[in-house]
């Protein structure tokens, strides 16, 4: 059976790589699920918690900070300036970061950067919850 070769690449190194059955991520157009033999695709990502269903039946959750997903020949690469595997995210720290970003937003700092921090923190928290909760 066809499998996907997945690589999650961040600026500071490879965050996760391995074989998978499917990948779910959120593009700027909406959620997308990638199965083996997907057509070649290059899409922009929103900050999100990407889910990878590995060949041994595990679910890996990786928080990504925008970037791209590219699919070709059953190779999926998720390219994000910052990517963190959910198991490595500290739930408390993520909650704290989200609260701080939310506070700044509520104080009226609605610039691109603060919004981005908020979305990133949100994605991390979601990823951490998904990994810890199940």
């Amino acid at each position, binding site marked *: 059976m066809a499998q996907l070769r997945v*690589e999650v*690449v*961040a*600026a*500071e*190194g*490879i965050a996760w790589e391995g074989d998978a059955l499917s990948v779910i991520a959120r*593009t*700027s*157009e909406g959620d*997308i699920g990638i199965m083996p033999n997907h*057509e*070649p*695709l*290059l*899409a*922009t990502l929103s900050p999100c918690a990407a889910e990878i269903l590995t060949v041994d039946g595990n679910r890996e959750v990786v928080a990504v900070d*925008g*970037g*791209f997903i*590219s699919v*070709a*020949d059953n190779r999926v*690469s998720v*390219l994000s*300036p*910052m990517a963190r595997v959910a198991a490595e995210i500290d739930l408390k720290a993520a909650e704290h970061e989200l609260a701080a970003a939310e506070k700044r937003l509520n104080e009226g700092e609605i610039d691109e950067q603060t919004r981005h921090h908020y979305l990133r923190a949100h994605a991390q928290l979601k990823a951490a919850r998904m990994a810890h909760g199940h």
Partner: protein
Amino acid sequence: MGASLRELRQRRKSVTATKKITRAMELIASSRVLKAQQAAARTLPYTRELNRAVSAVATYSRTDHPLTRPQADKPRRVAVVFITSDRGMNGAYSSNVIKMVSQMRERLDAEGIEMVRYAVGRKGIGYLSYRGMDMAASWSGFSDSPTYDRAVDIADRLVEDFLRPYEEGGVDEIWTIYTRMESMLSQTPRARRVLPLEVVQGVHEVSGEELLPLYEFEPSPEAVLDRLLPLYVRSRIWFYLLQSAASQLASQQKAMKAATDNAQQLIEGLTRAANQARQAEITQEISEIVGGASALADLTQDQN
């Protein structure tokens, strides 16, 4: 005589203390240079994927984008970003970069092009402010362990200045002078153009070895390119910062090794001089005693 012996011993002691320090710095630098090299190697997959993506877009759509477009037929104002260290004790690392900036300045002056400086690292900032030269922006405090966030800060500022029209103080071209890590023994300063981007090169490289699949772009090739290119600029700057950090540490290790060797030589010379002084002192004392004793003996003989 006694004074010179004491002086020699004192100097030897102080050189020994200095040697301990330079030796420690050498060891620290050598462990950190490995880490810096590993950090630089870890970014390769990211750069590779980014290059692939840019090539893919470039192959299947037009690459006309504000960041790839020359601002003018002939550049009128050129920005130079140069990466130096925050601290000294690393040999000629910073001065090599600064030398290259001056060479570039001469060349641009000859062509009548204005130059704007962006300094990264305290040494570069110090060099400019000491000479009263102005700089458009400066960053410091991370020369030996840069983070991606810093690269983002720098890259975003550069893109902003590049996109601003010339009349409002914008620049037509942006160059970076960084130090390339060739090996542990040699690091060379290099000048590279960051903006406008040259996408065409990437297309040739990829199409030579592999055929890119026919991608479906979401939402559109233009939107993808819009998002890709700023990331590409950031990743270039990130690469230059990491290369420079590794070079800086390698250069420091080399400089500290030389300093330790020199200190060792000095210690040997001083030890020899001190031993000689001690011998001379003892010899003098003996000859004084012998001289004194024989004078006394002569005196008693005369009395008898």
